[in-house]
């Protein structure tokens, strides 16, 4: 059924359709309307789940871990500082192989305090052993959330998953969303019946045990293998989702990369803007293409290499920054291309931090720099887009 939904509502509808046993959550802008919607569903009897309003995000994730360890489907949501506060326990969810699903309203981190969109919060959690999906639209938000449950709970994977949607651009923006019927989702997801982590007095087990040096590394290698296997499982689940619901996803989606001199890489809502900007550039005869990264963990290495292999230049639009290095996606793409005999040049464009709009003009600016590099001109490896550098240099001083 078509509904007009905000991004958080689309995530909440997906969560409801998954019939979780427990939702433990703590509100934080721009994610707050997710737990609000869930508690509404529970209060009016639409969702038969235990909703636990906890006292912090650390407690939210801890309660989810406890609940998931008893063997029920568990979901929560957060953003920014809240996700940072969960950091410590995120490792425990993945180490205990509990397929919790976490909805994120991607938001900048303080200081200065800022409630608007960038991807710094989830990128900072990339090494916690969680699967990571990024949505471009509210329909994708709902669909990827359902897909996240299916992938996370697959017996070959058993890893937690987070689904990111851009703060306000998606979380609070209304779009028409096709909400599947309960029966269709029941058929797709099935009941969560873990073979490893559940409580039963007839089968006493210890969860969250000690791991001595002679075993710890084997458990980490297990998580590594699960993440590697997730690559194929994600493809299978995308296929099954397309068969059942008619919408086809892939780890990366390409637009005009086949003959492009310059390929841009984006994540999240700016992908739509980039596609529009590139459509216009194509009309102007500029050979620019786009890769939208939907799955960031596991990093779709093989697909990325294949998609950029014909390009002269790749420009990564990073809505995050690792100070003292550059953007995360830029660094990882450069690394996976490194051992190829012939490879495109890779440049980084730090863009849209703290809710700064990413416009079609910004995209064009990036692409034009890429085209210069494709002609052999020298451009910086790391570029900050649409920043008043003069003002910052006046304040910080510059070493000449």
């Amino acid at each position, binding site marked *: 059924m078509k509904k007009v939904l905000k991004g958080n509502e689309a995530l909440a509808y997906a969560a409801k359709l998954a019939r979780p046993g427990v939702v433990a959550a703590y509100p934080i802008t721009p994610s707050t309307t997710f737990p609000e919607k869930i508690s509404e569903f529970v209060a009016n009897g639409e969702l038969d789940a235990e909703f636990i309003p906890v006292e912090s995000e650390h407690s939210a994730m801890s309660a989810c871990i406890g609940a998931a360890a008893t063997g029920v489907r568990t979901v929560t949501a957060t953003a920014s500082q809240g996700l940072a506060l969960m950091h410590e326990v995120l490792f425990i969810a993945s180490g*205990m*192989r*509990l397929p919790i699903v976490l909805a994120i309203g991607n938001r900048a981190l303080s200081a200065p305090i800022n409630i608007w969109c960038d991807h710094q919060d989830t990128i900072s959690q990339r090494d916690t052993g969680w699967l990571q999906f990024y949505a471009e639209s509210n329909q994708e938000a709902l669909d990827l959330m359902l897909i996240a449950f299916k992938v996370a709970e697959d017996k070959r994977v*058993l890893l937690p998953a987070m689904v990111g949607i851009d703060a306000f651009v998606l979380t609070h923006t209304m779009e028409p969303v096709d909400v599947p019927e309960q029966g269709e989702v029941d058929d797709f997801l099935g009941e969560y019946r873990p073979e*490893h982590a559940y409580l039963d007095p007839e089968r006493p*087990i210890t*969860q969250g045990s000690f791991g001595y040096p002679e*075993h710890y590394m084997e458990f980490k290698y297990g998580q590594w293998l699960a993440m590697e296997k997730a690559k194929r499982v994600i493809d299978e689940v995308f296929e099954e989702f397309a068969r059942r619901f008619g919408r086809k996803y892939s780890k990366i989606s390409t637009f005009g990369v086949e003959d492009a001199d310059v390929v841009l890489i984006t994540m999240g809502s700016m992908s739509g803007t980039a596609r529009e900007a590139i459509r216009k550039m194509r009309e102007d005869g500029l050979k620019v293409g786009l890769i939208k990264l939907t799955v960031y963990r596991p990093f779709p290495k093989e697909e990325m290499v294949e998609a950029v292999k014909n390009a002269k230049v790749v420009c990564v639009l990073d809505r995050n920054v690792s100070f003292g290095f550059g953007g995360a996606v830029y660094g990882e793409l450069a690394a996976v291309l490194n051992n190829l005999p012939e490879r495109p040049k890779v440049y980084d464009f730090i863009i849209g931090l703290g809710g700064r709009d990413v416009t079609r003009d910004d995209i064009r600016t990036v692409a034009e720099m890429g085209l210069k590099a494709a002609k052999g001109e020298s451009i910086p490896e790391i570029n900050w887009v649409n920043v008043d550098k003069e003002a910052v240099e006046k304040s910080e001083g510059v070493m000449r």
Partner: protein
Amino acid sequence: MKEITKGAIIYEPQNTYTYLTGGWRTFRPVINYEKCIRCYICWTYCPEPAIFKRKPAGEPVPNERVAEKDVVYIDYDHCKGCGICVAECPVKAIEFVKEEK
């Protein structure tokens, strides 16, 4: 080959007993049965637990009234040498001896 489970789950209850922690000790509690009044306060307080009871087998006694009572003994494979028994013993019947050879 090592035995590895998903999520480091342990399916065998109480298997920490097979992990010997006696090597952690710096001081070893030693019971002096001539002083021990068989009050079992050490047995109550031992957090491990590494103090157990058994039937007497000819240990010396402080007085004949306790001769038939169970004696306490220390499981040195698991005693970590925390010294709580030494501190709690009301008649100072447990000595704390440095582990050295």
